């Protein structure tokens, strides 16, 4: 058996409705500001849902040339920019030899749905000869990872897990394993999604999955609250730079947190609904904790999947109680989705970033809009104000349509 490597997070990049810089993003979360608003990207007049967490004032041009921009779907642009920001944040300059051990895993739940809609319209209105040569390469979900590898010359393992709303966490967990088992030394990992589009919004609305609180966008995402009525569609990207521990120590890198566990499971129950017994979600968290070998009472914080759907928040609360017993009332739980909505395949990337930043800064953001907690949701979800917490270990949960469950366990090093 080879020596197992330790894996640390030394770079973070996010693109969300709460600003494009890391400081602006985290500070907004701490202040409890919502990035959710009326959708402006297209006319929602005929839509049952008119609100979302759109990325505004997105400027990819510092990283992507005008030519390359034409060749990328919006989701891919989010992934590339988040990855470049993470790489910059890591303050590392890899040599050509090191880039042989450098991989990229960026998940996306849906991929280039915006491109799909535009080109399908061209097919119907103008015929097959008018469909462009970049349709396929803009559509396919693996292209964020592919483009990042081209941009940075990363010649190791590159991939794109497609596990719906768990894709980003799936990516980070797989990347952690690649380094842990000595395959790569450096990985960019996370998720990217841009599905605030007419077709995707219609589909999610048809599932009755989305909040219809159209008159009050900033109050619409209210995880664990009695009056929650669905999730709010968000968009963006979240990517981490993962590095083998010794390498990070030797170059005196800033380490946000160490990854010490990755749990996975499947509900094997229903295409969208979580198993109400919550056994699959519980098993996923247990698997992550077991890999680390720590006692459950060492976990101080859980960044919940916390979608604001009636079914998720009850099931997830139940799963946490199943895993942690009495300790579940001593740890803190919050939902980043209360402020930026549900970024689908990007959610796990952004939320792992938030978990790492919370550990690094010793503070957890509030879950906003939690005015009247659901009686079945009785944990400490950080109502009201942000709170200073000395976090030893923290979990980031992501659960996806299809029953895919992933948990990432992070540890404070300082």
């Amino acid at each position, binding site marked *: 058996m080879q020596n197992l490597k330790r894996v640390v997070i030394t770079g973070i990049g996010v693109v969300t409705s709460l600003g494009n810089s890391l400081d602006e993003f985290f500070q907004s979360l701490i202040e409890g500001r919502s990035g959710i608003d009326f959708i402006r990207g297209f006319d929602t007049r005929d839509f049952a849902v008119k609100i979302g967490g759109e990325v505004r004032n997105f400027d990819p041009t510092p990283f992507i*040339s*005008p*030519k390359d921009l*034409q060749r990328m779907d919006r989701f891919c642009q989010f992934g590339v920019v988040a990855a470049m920001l993470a790489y910059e944040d890591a303050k590392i300059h890899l040599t050509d030899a090191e880039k042989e051990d450098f991989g990229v895993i960026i998940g996306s739940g849906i991929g280039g749905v915006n491109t799909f809609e535009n080109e399908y319209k061209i097919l119907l209105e103008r015929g097959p000869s*008018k469909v*462009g*040569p*970049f349709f396929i*390469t803009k559509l396919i979900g693996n292209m964020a990872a592919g483009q990042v590898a081209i941009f940075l010359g990363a010649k190791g393992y590159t991939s794109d897990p497609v596990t719906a709303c768990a894709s980003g966490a799936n990516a980070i967990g797989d990347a952690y394993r690649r380094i842990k088992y000595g395959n790569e030394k450096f990985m960019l990992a996370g998720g990217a999604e841009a599905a605030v589009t007419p077709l995707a919004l219609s589909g999610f609305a048809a599932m009755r999955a989305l909040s219809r609180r159209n008159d009050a966008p900033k109050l619409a995402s209210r995880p664990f609250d009695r009056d929650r009525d669905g999730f709010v569609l968000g968009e963006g990207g979240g990517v981490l730079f993962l590095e083998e521990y010794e390498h990070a120590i030797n170059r005196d890198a800033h380490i946000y947190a160490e990854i010490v566990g990755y749990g996975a499971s499947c509900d094997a129950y229903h295409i969208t609904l979580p198993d109400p017994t919550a056994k699959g979600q519980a098993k996923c968290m247990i698997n992550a904790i077991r890999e680390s070998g720590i006692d459950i009472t060492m976990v101080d914080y859980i960044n919940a999947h916390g979608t604001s759907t009636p079914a998720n928040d009850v099931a997830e609360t139940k799963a946490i109680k199943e895993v942690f017993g009495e300790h579940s009332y001593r740890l803190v739980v919050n939902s980043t989705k209360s402020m930026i909505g549900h970024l689908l395949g990007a959610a796990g990337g952004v939320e792992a970033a938030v978990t790492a930043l919370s550990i690094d800064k010793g503070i957890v953001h509030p879950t906003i809009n939690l005015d009247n907690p659901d009686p079945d949701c009785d944990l400490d979800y950080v109502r009201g104000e942000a709170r200073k917490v000395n976090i030893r270990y923290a979990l980031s949960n992501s659960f996806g349509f299809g029953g895919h469950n992933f948990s990432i366990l992070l540890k404070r090093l300082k």
Partner: protein
Amino acid sequence: MTELEILEKVKPIIADKLGIDQEQIKMESNFINDLGADSLGLVDITMALEEEFGMEIPDEEASKLTTVGAMIDFIKNNYKG
């Protein structure tokens, strides 16, 4: 239309698609060797020029139009105004 008039119309399109300066674009420029186009970029330019000039450039013809000059010749000879 004269060759020069056509050149002035195609320059901004080629420059946009390939992310280059218009000054780089000469009659003798080879799309791939001189202007850095890849095969997909060449298709993209061909389709944009079809739009601009309201004409069809069949695939078997397009594959022979490897320079800006050849492309302009084809447009000049087939443009129906």
